[in-house]
């Protein structure tokens, strides 16, 4: 069952990578739905049955019944099923202030080298010239208060930029010490950034560092889809493909119907090498 899969989508790849990081002894605050939730749900079924997560509506440690109806990722009976505790948004924020949130997992529209997240406006803010988005939502609290934040974005120049057009949720802001100067708790911040092609971390100077790539791309391909050059780790690893078991559970128990994963390009194993499938 745990043999490497022969076919999977880029999204499935990311979810499986993150799920492999998730552990029983930590508490996660996940953005409702999408890759963040699917990652912890996959881990809960694979390796971390007692894993606890919370969402913005103050649900603590639910045993969610997936799939959900469209958008029903919070304040719904299936998402909040058999929780340990039901609270409210301020309660979730209290727990994050207190340091109970070990990891936050966030999907991002635009992210920069310091892990600053933009979900407000792409382009110029003033005069409404730019394209307006939804705002930080719960991401600001997660990015500010979780001990470690895992960010997810697409491997695209316009989404992975040197400086976001607008800091909606804080990464390292403009570098070491900046978070503390602005009242955010110390020793917090972005920890990993995942794209369908690569995994990044941060060095002690808060510089984005390419740590690993997907088996179906090269380092140059990754750098080609960034609008700045990250630090390169001494050795850039190659991440392992999803296993059949991971994909089976993901497809049959979690993302049934492919609401989350049925996007992005498909990858297939051909002549012993992973490559993008021809559409």
């Amino acid at each position, binding site marked *: 069952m745990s043999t490497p899969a022969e076919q999977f989508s880029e999204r499935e790849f990311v979810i499986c990578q993150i799920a492999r990081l998730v552990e029983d002894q930590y508490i996660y605050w996940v953005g409702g739905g999408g890759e963040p939730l699917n990652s912890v749900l996959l881990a809960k079924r694979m390796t971390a049955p007692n894993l606890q997560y919370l969402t913005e509506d*103050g649900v603590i440690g639910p045993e969610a019944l997936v799939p959900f109806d469209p958008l029903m990722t919070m304040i719904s*009976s299936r998402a909040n099923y058999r929780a340990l505790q039901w609270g*409210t948004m301020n309660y979730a*924020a209290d727990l994050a202030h207190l340091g109970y949130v070990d990891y936050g997992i966030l999907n991002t529209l635009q992210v920069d080298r310091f892990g600053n997240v933009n979900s407000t406006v792409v382009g110029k803010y003033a005069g409404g010239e730019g394209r307006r988005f939804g*705002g930080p*939502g719960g991401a600001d609290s997660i990015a*500010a208060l979780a001990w470690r934040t895992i960010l997810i974005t697409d491997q695209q120049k316009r989404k992975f930029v040197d400086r976001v057009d607008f800091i909606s949720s804080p990464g390292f802001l403009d570098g070491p010490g*900046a978070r503390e100067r602005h009242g955010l708790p110390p020793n917090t911040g972005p920890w990993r950034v995942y794209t369908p092609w690569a995994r990044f971390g941060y060095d002690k100077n808060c510089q984005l560092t390419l740590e690993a790539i997907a088996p179906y791309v090269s380092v140059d391909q990754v750098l080609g889809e960034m609008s700045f050059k990250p630090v390169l780790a001494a050795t850039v690893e190659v991440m392992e493909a999803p296993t059949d078991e991971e994909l089976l559970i993901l497809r049959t128990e979690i993302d049934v119907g492919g609401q989350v994963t049925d996007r992005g390009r498909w990858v297939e194993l051909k002549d012993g090498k992973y490559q993008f499938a021809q559409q």
Partner: protein
Amino acid sequence: MRVIEEGKAEFLKVDPDGYRTHVRDHKPHRMVSKLMSHKDAVERFIRDGDYLAYDCNYFQRGPSSLIREIIRQNRKNLWLCGKFTYVACALLVEGGCADRIDIGFIGFGPWISRAVREGKCKIYEYSNALMTLRLKAGAMGLPFLPARSFGGTDGFERSACKLVEDPYTKQPVLLVPALNPDAAIIHVHQADEFGNARVFGTGITHQECALASKRVIVSAEEIVSTDEFRRDPARTSIPHFAVDAVVHAPFGAFPGTVQGYYASDPQGVVEAMGALYRGDFREYLKKHVYSVASHEEYLDKVVGAAKMIEMRRRETIREGYVS
């Protein structure tokens, strides 16, 4: 306690003393029946220019029927508390009712870029949790509360938050200004005629909204007796004296869900989200707001019995949603 840095945005005046006086003079301390229709409640308690907070949203145990009634009555110049919300802000702005939003998160699309560009709508920047914290400060009768997020963001200078030096730790800490909306609309599972109300399951800020707001309309799936509340006082989410109007609104959250009572109507959700993404709400408003005179007519003519039955059938989980 030095102010290090402060946001420059316009904000609803912080006035805990004024709110106290309002509570003394205008909140119904005596238990009086407040049952009334959507029409009467909105006519009496929602006014042009109000700062309006609604709890949850159009899809999740939100006061959707009251939002439709507000648009139907063509309120103007509302200032919205835009937290944890998908289409409600869009409906109220596109419906011509609102021109300012404090944003935590709103469902975006062409409508909002257009509204901002054309100056139809002013935006002030916060986060979901900061907006609920502002309401909590308002619900505690305090002028502000500290928080440890949002500092250093580009939203900060477009908010009314302040970064101050904590006089105890000497470290920088954020302050959010209390929010005491002029009006709040809240949808609940159960209420009595006096306004005692119960929400089952998780929530966003129903209790804070009720205690922080000058005029409060509660819409309820069920009207139950006060004895129900006295039988299990721990379940009371909102006390009667915070509430000005009680509206019986079965399926009041349509097309959304009321957890434990009925599931959402995916088709209805997709229809609203479609309008959001297209940036054109004319058809949606025509069908779901202007084509009917009341929520009762809406359920009868637009929603229909079959859909209501189906929504109840699809909500199979009851655990935790009863007293």
